């Protein structure tokens, strides 16, 4: 089976990937790390011929009540035109307000008002890029009393009103469900046909006033609990391109590829189970 799981293309691995050309499902880059131009962008362009690319944005701030930053959007659009990735994505969150950018994926209240803002911004993004984008469920450390919808209900509404795809981050489900005392199985009710990609990552277990809080730091191997939840997700929705995210304390490339191979084995096993059941 060809690999379905891909890896993030990170600076420490660039030379090794360019030299060794390891087999992997696809390579992912963060849009905002490649807008300024650099030798790294030239290296990505050279890899473009041999690998499918996924462009993951972290700074479009799709939940901003201010609307999208058109100057930033134009730069992302130029990068997308240049690299022609298989997938473009960003998060269900906001990062900017009043001309300031906070470099964090900040939580939205799940209300009709926020739905209007997100749908308008996603529509503008899709119109500017001339293609569908996928929206990722965020890691949350808080919830708002005013939220009228659950996160999966809100995401399903964004999909139905904007026609966007869903990027399902399984680690983020685990982190949010733990931190907000929710049931991770709630996310299995999402519209599966909209899901275009899965994300897997490690998280940190921190202490907040004597309670554990899970922090989505992309700094370790995928946890056992997240692998179990990933099996449920693949069983429910089927296989999708799957990204291993590892952004802090980036390991040797071999370990990253090893995590991707584990995801591939799990997906293959679920495929066999599904075939047997059919």
């Amino acid at each position: 089976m060809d690999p379905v799981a891909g890896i993030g293309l990170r600076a420490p691995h660039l030379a090794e990937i360019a030299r060794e050309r390891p087999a992997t499902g696809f390579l992912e880059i963060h849009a905002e790390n490649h807008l300024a131009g650099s030798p790294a962008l030239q290296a990505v362009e050279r890899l473009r011929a041999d690998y499918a690319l996924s462009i993951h944005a972290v700074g479009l701030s799709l939940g901003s009540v201010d609307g999208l930053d058109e100057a930033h959007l134009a730069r992302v659009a130029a990068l997308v035109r240049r690299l022609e990735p298989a997938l473009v994505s960003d998060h269900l969150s906001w990062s900017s307000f009043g001309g300031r950018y906070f470099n964090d994926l900040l939580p939205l209240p799940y209300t009709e008002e926020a739905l209007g803002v997100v749908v308008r911004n996603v529509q503008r993004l899709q119109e500017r890029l001339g293609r569908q984008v996928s929206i990722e469920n965020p890691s949350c450390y808080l919830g708002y009393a005013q939220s009228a919808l659950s996160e999966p209900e809100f995401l399903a509404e964004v999909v139905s009103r904007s026609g966007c795809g869903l990027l399902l981050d399984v680690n983020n489900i685990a982190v949010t469900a733990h931190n907000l005392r929710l049931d991770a199985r709630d996310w299995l009710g999402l519209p599966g046909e909209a899901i275009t990609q899965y994300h897997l990552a490690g998280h940190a277990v921190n202490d907040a006033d004597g309670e554990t809080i899970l922090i989505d730091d992309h700094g370790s191997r995928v946890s056992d609990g997240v692998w179990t939840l990933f099996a449920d997700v693949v069983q429910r929705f089927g296989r999708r391109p799957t990204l291993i995210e590892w952004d802090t304390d980036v390991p040797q490339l071999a370990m990253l590829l090893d995590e991707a191979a584990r995801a591939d084995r799990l997906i293959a096993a679920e495929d066999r189970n599904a075939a047997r059941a059919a």
Partner: protein
Amino acid sequence: MPLALRDLQAAFAAHLLGADRADLTAEVFGDTIPASARLRVYRHHVFESLGAALAATFPTVQALVGADFFRGLARAFVGQSPPDQPVLAEYGAGFPAFIAGHDAARELPYLADVGRLDWALNLAFHAPAGGRLAATDLAALSADRLPSLRLALAPGTALISSPYPLDRIWAASQPDAPAGTVDLDGGAHLLVLRRPDDAAFVALSAGEVAFVTGLADGLSLEEAACRADSGFNLSVAFARLLGLGALAASQ
């Protein structure tokens, strides 16, 4: 009455930069983890991640003051001047000036200039690779036309001058540098450049500085050479800049 989204994001933004916003805390579900502790996770991440971005852009400043001190310096700067756009490689233009006005500058008077060097190296690293004048571009040109040529500096090329020996300070701050003290006597004139795979700098003589400054001001090669001292050799200096890829291809 719950906060409207605009007011909620305004309150959250103020919280992130250090304000105490009871109206925001009231919006957040608290349980055994109080709302204030949940909000702190976000504030912490904003300062830590932007501090890490500054550390990546100003590695020499960080090496000189140490990671702990740098974190405090970055924290103060982020609180005062958060980014206005999402490309972190372009964040920190004001950091060297901020350092100059900070208490740290009193003990390390060269620190702000080191910051300017780090920033120039960062700009050069992200500058376009192409558009550089090569010797072959001049082959078609008759020799008598060369002196009247006006040439701009290539993208990313920048002159950093300081009363401190920034090149020696920089070298001593590298991870593999041997331990020792740096003689702080004497200034430095450095030309920062984008190279094919990275950014770097070279030291210039006083004559080369006058020449490069003249070119940047739009003078011809001959006019710029007149700004230099009597020992200046135009053809040697021109060949050096050409070899370094410091000059822009003429339009």
